[in-house]
């Protein structure tokens, strides 16, 4: 009898302590290797236990859509604006003050999500086979005979698709379609993602690649001799587009308070500094020491086209266009 009572008490206590434990469930499209230390720091700072499901941004986005109102997720942290846009309906509204902490250029006007870092589209090239005067001035140059069969791209990649979306919104569908067709005619080679394009340049398969800015640093940090360089196009060219990674609170969450704690943490100076230095990305707030190997954000903002990041979630027309020209 006594034993049963004690066991019952233990059970109740156990349950209580379980219920009292502060947790937050995060679906992270960002890789574990980069993010894990940040999660640890969050747990240490807030006492909230973070349960993280890592996966590809797109797989997790699909999973969230499938889970719908029954999703166990509190926060979705995505690699690209396309996924964030596609999930707008699944996100809870963020208080306006959240977006007020980030720089103007990165703000989400709808307050559905908040940018957690910035990155830019860049051109990578072979330092062995490309002379400085051979570098293209803008993306239109890449359709020249001179670049025939030498350029890599990744049509399934979220960053590339965001670039096409921005391109469409600034120049119109017809121009983009013409450019895509010209690139195909110029034998641009399809790769799976950003990293494989860098490999392909090093391997001598191609000489140029259209990727995000933060990949090459991981190679050059380990091997100073790595034969791939990174550059931008002429000021204002769409090829210099600024993109964001961001996070939102899932509408289905019954734990929005802790979700908010995590978002706030991501925007905190410490986290921003970590992402900047470890991830080779741009911080979304002021007062962060920039990465030494990256061009300062001010310079980037100067040469990048003026495109509202809020509009980059409009994927549908982009996908239709890519399908029409046979890239998807």
């Amino acid at each position, binding site marked *: 009898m006594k034993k049963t009572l004690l066991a019952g008490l233990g059970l109740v206590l156990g349950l209580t302590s379980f219920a009292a434990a502060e947790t937050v469930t995060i679906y992270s499209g960002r*890789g*574990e*290797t980069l993010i894990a230390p940040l999660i640890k720091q969050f747990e240490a700072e807030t006492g909230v236990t973070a349960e993280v499901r890592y996966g590809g941004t797109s797989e997790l986005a699909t999973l969230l859509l499938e889970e719908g109102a*029954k999703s166990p997720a509190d926060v979705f942290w995505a690699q690209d604006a396309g996924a964030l846009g596609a999930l707008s309906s699944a996100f809870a509204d963020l208080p306006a003050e959240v977006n007020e902490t980030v720089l103007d250029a990165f703000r989400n006007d709808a307050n559905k999500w908040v940018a957690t870092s910035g990155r830019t589209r860049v051109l990578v090239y072979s330092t062995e086979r490309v002379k400085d005067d051979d570098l293209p001035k803008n993306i239109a140059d890449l359709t020249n005979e001179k670049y025939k069969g030498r350029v890599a791209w990744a049509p399934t990649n979220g960053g590339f698709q965001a670039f096409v979306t921005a391109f469409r919104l600034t120049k119109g569908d017809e121009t983009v379609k013409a450019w895509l067709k010209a690139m195909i005619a110029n034998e641009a080679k399809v790769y799976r993602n950003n990293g494989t394009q860098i490999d392909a340049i090093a*391997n*001598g398969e191609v000489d140029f690649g259209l990727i995000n800015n933060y990949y090459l640093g*991981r190679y050059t940090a*380990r091997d100073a001799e790595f034969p791939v360089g990174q550059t931008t196009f002429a000021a204002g060219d769409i090829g210099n587009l600024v993109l964001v990674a961001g996070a939102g609170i899932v509408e289905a969450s019954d734990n929005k308070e802790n979700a908010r704690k995590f978002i706030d943490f991501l925007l905190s100076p410490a986290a921003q500094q970590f992402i900047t230095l470890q991830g080779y990305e741009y911080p979304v707030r002021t007062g962060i020491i920039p990465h030494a190997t990256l061009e300062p954000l001010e310079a980037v903002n100067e040469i990048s086209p003026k495109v509202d990041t809020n509009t980059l979630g409009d994927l549908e027309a982009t996908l239709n266009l*890519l399908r029409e020209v046979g890239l998807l």
Partner: protein
Amino acid sequence: MTVLATFTRAGRTPSPPLLLVVPALVVGIGTLLPVFYLLMRALDADASQLGEIVFRQRNLFLLLNTLKLVAVVLTLGTLFALPAAWLVTRTDIRFKGLLSFLMALPLAVPGYVMAYALLGLSGYYGFARQWAGISLPPLHGLWGAGLALSLYTFPYLFLNLRAAFLGMDPALEESAQSLGKSRLVIFRHIVLPQLWPAMVASWLIVGLYVIGDFGAIALMRYEVFSYAIFTQYSGAFDRTYAAWLSLMLLALTVVALSAQRAVTRNRRFARTGTGSARITRPIGLGRWHLAAWAFFALVVLCSLGLPLMVLGHWMRLGVPEAEWAHLGRTALGTFLTAGPAAVLTMVLAVPVVVLTLRHPGPFASLIERLAFVGYATPALAFALAMVFFALRNAPFLYQSYALLMFAYVMSFVALAFGPIRLALLQIGTRQEEAARALGVSPTTAFMRVVLPRLRRPMVAGSLLVFIMVVKELPITYLLAPMGYSTLAMNVFSRTNEGMMGDAAPFALSIILFSSLFVGLILKYEGSAARAAGK
């Protein structure tokens, strides 16, 4: 009267026992769930979009590419597997055990690691450039993807062909020889027709795998049908048109299943004689020894040497940080899920195979086909179906180990059919009938007379499933309980971020641990054929 003729007749009992029907229903329902899910999603489609996304010329082109790839993989795989299986079962080549082990081991290599290995041969960091100073042309496209896939799927063909060789009555070959036929003629007219069912069955398994694979193929920059499905899910976050495309893939699967039945109709594995399988006098290779060894050396170098070299290379490039504790935990966690999943698969596979052999009919063949459909369902769609049904009907199961294992079992159960089927055909029904004539119920007869002799093929089959589960990715990604990660997930996420050095220890442990189990498969699978001989 042949063993087989009795086999089909023996089953003419009015209705199969519940002990067979219930597991079969579980398999049937479990594998039908994804089909239901896909049909349901497909109904949301908009007719005009359908034309643009699903019924367009590009998909036909992709489908054609898929078929080309299947043809290349099966051809290359057979070119590796058939001579190897023949050499280790029929000739006087030495170290047969070791050679069989080496031929089966590439099964443990994850597909994208194999792709990286082939790419690594030629690349900037490639061995060719680093060690020999030559730049090889990169291996891309159809042949690159075909080679990569065949290099880690051929062991499956090898294991099946080896078992078929071992189970074949050598007297047939000898009598053909006594009729004055040359070795080549005997091989073409006696051996090959007998191998045919085993060959076609393993072609089906490998072919369906190729149709569904995405990782290795994408790295090889070859566009196939699964690419269209992946693009739809991941590019467009769309589940409706992806469902249409997945259903098209399943239709292809059903066609393949029917084709398999058509080409193997009236042909069976088993020896029909009543004598025991004698050990034939091995064929002396003579001066062909050198050629045989060169063949094995080449296959081992490509299928094992390259991946191991690329992993060693990655480890040298970036010294991995001390993640040993994490590695150990992950390995243990992986095996603790894969192990029970493999055992459970076998528990369900045995009744289904018994049902198809002993109670043939529309129900049995439906269940068997559904199991293959489950195996062929694109993994992402399979996982989403589990998410859908679990959240609606059993939310407490969502993201639990139970659901994860259920998904593994349902998608791999077809893999376990082969070894059990072969063993059951070789055992025949006579002994069970003899037991029943001695007054024992059919269930007891099966348990006491047949099951003890199925132990080996069951172990072999579950180890096969085990290895597949260890390498599995999409289902694990979507259904794993919070905080659970497998070795394969760690390899994939690290390679995906270009952190090859960090990925290498995880990939290496997959190969090393799996190699233990491959060794066990051979130990059990090889003697199964002999045990069933009498």
